[in-house]
């Protein structure tokens, strides 16, 4: 009896203490829940705003009693070339940036001596912090002009490829230049993420590969890449997201125009963000709805891209080598 009596107060005190802990737990889980709900609400409100504001442009006959929208007959005619330009510029950026970024990340994680790897890592992270308008200014004043002779060469030697057909630009303000600027901008994002993932490759895997007689390159191919595949894809998709939505740099660098496969001609192609940035300040009525609807399309493109990325990542999970 005395034993149980003495044990009970102990239990009680332990319960009290754990009650305090339970309250903290509750507060924390509710805060986390609230944060989750807020982000979903914000996203929902953005989506609702975009849809309601773009209705007059999406169905002009129903919502604004007009036969056509302000800049074309149908919304598709207006937005499809813009979507094409946006995707084209982003693809150029990805093609240029991905191999370089993976290379830099590999160098930092597996090749460079520590003394060099750390400062290089810092510089790469610094690149990510430069505002896009600075990239735009650099692209506009320096890069565009220095691309002109390259365009001339591409046109003369590879003009049979549709991408390099058409009159080469005399100022370099083309979609290809925009793509190069975008590539520089997304390079640090892909690099830092890849570096983090490469570093996490299990040491035992690497050492086992080397012990089997693999060269360093074979070791990377056998252990690092399979382990990091999902991570590389996610980082590339993150970079793609930035390239798709980049506004200021493209606005400054590109002379926009109608859609065309030719990447080296000025006054061709435009991207959705720069179209919005150029025309939104003075747009009103139908034109404003059009631009917001174009924004909605960009929203959808990013959504689709992210879903595809998720799908690819989940498909490769089993082969990641981590398990």
């Amino acid at each position, binding site marked *: 009896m005395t034993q149980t009596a003495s044990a009970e107060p102990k239990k009680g005190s332990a319960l009290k203490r754990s009650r305090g802990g339970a309250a903290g737990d509750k507060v924390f889980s509710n805060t986390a829940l609230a944060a989750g709900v807020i982000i979903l609400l914000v996203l929902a409100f953005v989506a609702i705003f975009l849809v309601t504001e773009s209705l007059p442009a999406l169905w002009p006959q129903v919502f604004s009693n007009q036969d056509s929208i302000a*800049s074309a007959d149908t919304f598709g005619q207006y937005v499809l070339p813009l979507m094409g330009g946006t995707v084209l510029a982003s693809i150029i950026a990805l093609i240029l940036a991905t191999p370089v970024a993976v290379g830099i990340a590999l160098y930092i994680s597996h090749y460079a001596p520590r003394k060099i790897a750390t400062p290089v890592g810092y510089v790469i992270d610094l690149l990510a912090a430069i505002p896009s308008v600075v990239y735009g200014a650099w692209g506009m004043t320096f890069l565009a002009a220095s691309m002109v002779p390259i365009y001339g060469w591409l046109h003369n030697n590879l003009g049979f490829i549709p991408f390099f057909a058409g009159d080469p630009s005399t100022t370099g303000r083309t979609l290809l230049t925009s793509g190069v600027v975008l590539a520089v901008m997304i390079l640090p994002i892909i690099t830092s993420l890849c570096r983090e993932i490469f570093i996490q490759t299990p040491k035992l895997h690497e050492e086992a590969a080397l012990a089997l007689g693999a060269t360093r390159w074979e070791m990377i191919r056998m252990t690092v890449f399979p382990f990091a595949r999902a991570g590389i894809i996610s980082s590339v998709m993150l970079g793609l997201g930035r390239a798709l939505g980049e506004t200021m740099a493209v606005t*400054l660098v590109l002379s926009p125009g109608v859609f065309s496969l030719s990447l080296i001609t000025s006054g061709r192609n435009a991207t959705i963000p720069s179209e919005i940035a*150029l025309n939104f300040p003075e747009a009103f009525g139908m*034109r404003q709805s059009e631009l917001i609807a174009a924004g909605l399309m960009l929203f959808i493109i990013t959504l689709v891209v992210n879903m595809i990325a998720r799908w690819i990542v989940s498909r490769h999970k089993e082969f990641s080598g981590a398990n």
Partner: protein
Amino acid sequence: MKITRLAPAAALLAVGALTLSACGGSNGGSNGGGEGGEGGDSGSIAGTLIGGGASSQESAMTAWVEGVKGEHADLTVQYDPVGSGSGREGFLNGQYSFAGSDAAMDDDEKSQAESICGPEGVFHVPAYISPVAVAYNLPEVSEAVKMDADTIAKVFTGEISKWNDEAIASQNEGVELPDMDITVVHRADESGTTENFTEYLAAAAPDSWTHDVVEAWPSDIAAESAQQTSGVVSLTNSTEGAITYADASQVGELGTVAVGVGEEYVEYSADAAAQAVESAEQAEDGSVELDRDTEEGGVYPIVLVSYHIYCKQYQDQETADLAKAFATYVVSEAGQSEAEGAAGSAPISAGTRDAAMQSIDAIGVQG
């Protein structure tokens, strides 16, 4: 305690009452002034006038907002440079008491305006006149290159692609034109400058300019472009052989085309631009129909006219007085020279001023 707490409140009330009575007094005063014909003493007009619209007038408007304080110290004017279309829209739904606009109101808008301004409707004052220069970057050519409207249209559509093309050379005897590609630079954003320039091309060179009069450059002409006036000017500056159109006050070091008018070639100047508005046909609502293909000597035909749009009759006396005082100042010689200093616009001619003052003096109150 209670008394000390009440004291500030009482003081506030007293001040409020004084201010109110002062307002009443000033209203009475300005009424008297209005009836007397000219605005009364400088202290009589007080209040805030809110307007919005064309961003082309922005720097001129800043000068006017400051300058009008010299005549009416208590008249505060706010101007939102939201763009011509938004300005007219804001005016029509009562947000702005006056609108700045690069384009005159169309019939639809004018009939809408009757709900705000009463059955008398609105009138336009061509308050801001700015010559649009056709500017080029040819460092080796010192004299102004001469081009007639047809040549300008062909250059900007890309039909003429070399500076030493026969069409240009034949108009510039004795000028050494380089064997260089012409790089056409236009505005990437929608712009009243583009609209004016294409209006000129469509009127003066209908055979060569087959595109419409547009705010956004026709997309099937592949050419260089940049954002805003500053963008096209800096791109032209950095590209040898480039040609563009831009607000004449902003072209800086660039050479400017002497535009063919009739038999002669006219370089842009404030006088020549004001002359274009003076000789234009003025509609009943105050808007002007520029004679773009004029053959009259000394007239520079590529001119941007930006209006101030006012109600003929306002809903209350105070707004009417404020609008009248501001409008009077803007078209006055002082106001126009202030804008010339700040924005490089062309002062309106005496004839235009007289016509505008007739409408401004008639601003009244509904009912």
